[in-house]
């Protein structure tokens, strides 16, 4: 998933007794796993939290096209070019139906996009990293889409119906992307030259830690999690999901014949999980604040696409109005 540090606006959880009748009814529905639909009453905080989360998620799908677009015109074979085009097309589609899900909450797509371009809202930290070789296309598919899936699978059971249903389709397509990404790397490791193998290891070295950061701050530094969990927007803690991702990824890393840039990574018999080294949270918070390798360029590119396309959208609107007028 591509939403990090979503502010719920709430400092402490209310008990059912502290809630008014509407809110209590809402919370009881959530507790009973009944989906909340657009026309149902919902607390303001719930609505705002979802708008923040879904818009951040949608923005990330769209900004996430750019690091891949960086290699699209240089894809090395017909098959790889077709795969990457299809993946990017899927991402644009994910963005579209996430924005639609968000609009069911009363938010406006264009307004939310403007907020992104003004730097008022975020997109996932992972997409501020540059893609420096073709192997990055494999690493993104495998690690980034892989981390996204671990985060998004529980969102298929999110209490808000439209978001949960959007996630079902998104997850299906992303599993496909993840397998393709892994296959890109596996082909280079198994059939490639020494230079290609170095490219793969270098891509993993650069994307390893940023992928682990995708799950957001550690639990003791995640002030919004409790409310999101009570609303069943979120089902598992950041650290829990990070561990799940790591446990499934390390065997794949070994099968690839590559290593992680983490000397502390090792299997722990007692816990049944992999132990790993300390994450550089300073880097994560710097990136979120905009002190990032390509964050500025990503937003500039999105902004100029929308700005330069204004005359096209205006023409489409003017034409539609003329058609309507002549039909009337």
């Amino acid at each position, binding site marked *: 998933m591509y939403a990090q540090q979503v502010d719920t606006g709430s400092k402490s959880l209310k008990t059912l007794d502290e809630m008014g009748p509407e809110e209590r009814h809402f919370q009881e529905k959530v507790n009973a796993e009944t989906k909340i639909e657009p026309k149902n009453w919902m607390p303001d905080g719930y609505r705002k939290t979802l708008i923040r989360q879904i818009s951040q998620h949608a923005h990330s799908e769209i900004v996430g096209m750019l690091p891949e677009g960086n290699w699209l015109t240089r894809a090395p074979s017909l098959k790889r070019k077709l795969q990457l085009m299809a993946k990017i097309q899927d991402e644009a589609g994910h963005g579209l139906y996430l924005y639609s899900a968000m609009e069911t909450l009363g938010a406006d797509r264009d307004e939310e996009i403007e907020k992104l371009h003004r730097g008022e809202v975020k997109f996932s930290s992972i997409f501020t990293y540059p893609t420096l070789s073709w192997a990055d296309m494999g690493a993104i598919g495998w690690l980034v889409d892989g981390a996204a899936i671990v985060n998004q699978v529980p969102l298929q059971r999110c209490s808000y119906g439209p978001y949960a249903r959007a996630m079902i389709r998104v997850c299906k397509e992303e599993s496909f992307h993840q397998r393709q990404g892994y296959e890109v790397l596996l082909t280079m490791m198994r059939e490639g030259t020494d230079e290609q193998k170095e490219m793969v290891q270098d891509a993993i070295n650069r994307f390893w830690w940023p992928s682990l950061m995708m799950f957001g701050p550690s639990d003791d530094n995640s002030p919004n999690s409790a409310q999101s969990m009570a609303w069943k927007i979120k089902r598992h803690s950041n650290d829990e999901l990070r561990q799940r991702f790591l446990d499934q990824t390390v065997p794949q890393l070994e099968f690839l014949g590559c290593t992680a840039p983490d000397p502390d990574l090792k299997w722990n018999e007692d816990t049944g999980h992999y132990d790993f080294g300390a994450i550089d949270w300073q880097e994560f918070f710097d990136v979120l604040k905009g002190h990032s390798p390509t964050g500025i360029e990503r937003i500039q590119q999105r902004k100029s696409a929308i700005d330069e*396309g204004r005359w096209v959208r205006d023409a489409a609107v003017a034409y539609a109005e003329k058609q309507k007028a002549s039909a009337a």
Partner: protein
Amino acid sequence: MNALTQYLLRLADTDMVLAQRLCEWCGKAPALEEEVAMMNVGLDLLGQARNWYDYAAELLDDGRDADQLAFRRNEREYRNLLLAEYPRGDYAVTTAKQFFFDVWHHRVLTRLSGSSDERIAGLAAKGLKEASYHRRRSTEWMLRLGQGTEESHRRLADAVQNLWRFTYELTDTDAVEDELAEAGIGAGNVGDAWRAEVSRVLEQAGLDVPEPARHFYLDGKNGKHTEQLGFLLAEMQYLPRAYPDATW
């Protein structure tokens, strides 16, 4: 190289180069819906290119496969229509370019789906479904931009004027095309149908229909291109050229 192989490479290279230009739009489209649509058209064209390359590679039978034909030939060997290599420009340029091509492509694939060469007929029939959608889409955009606002009208008029000079390749045929048409294999000349349909849409869009374009020195079908193609290929072929022994 025999006429059929040349003909297949022309079809393949044109699809390939157009798809590459559409890839350049990634993340830069005027709306999200257009990101999806342009990538969709690009995917169709690239898929068709691959099919034509596969067939050409079989006929050539010199050890090269579809990838080598796409990624290891230089600009003098590329046989795409000049229109395809024209830089993507603004959305009006891309719209006019796709439209001119789509009308031609649709006519050509319609005829090729009745080719006496069964392989060609099958691939063309499959491609025709895609090309029909492309033609409908670009026709709609021609009308939107032509009749939309003053600015969109002006931009589209400029685009048509700039691109028109390359359209003789869509209306004229050369010896290779004539030979294959006589043999019942190629599409032959679709110039009259192309001119009629394009004129109708231009008029509907409120644009002047220029005098027919005439051949002038350049000849994309036989490898004599504009200066633009070299740069396009340099970018597109970078990895296979830089790592000739690599497997991707």
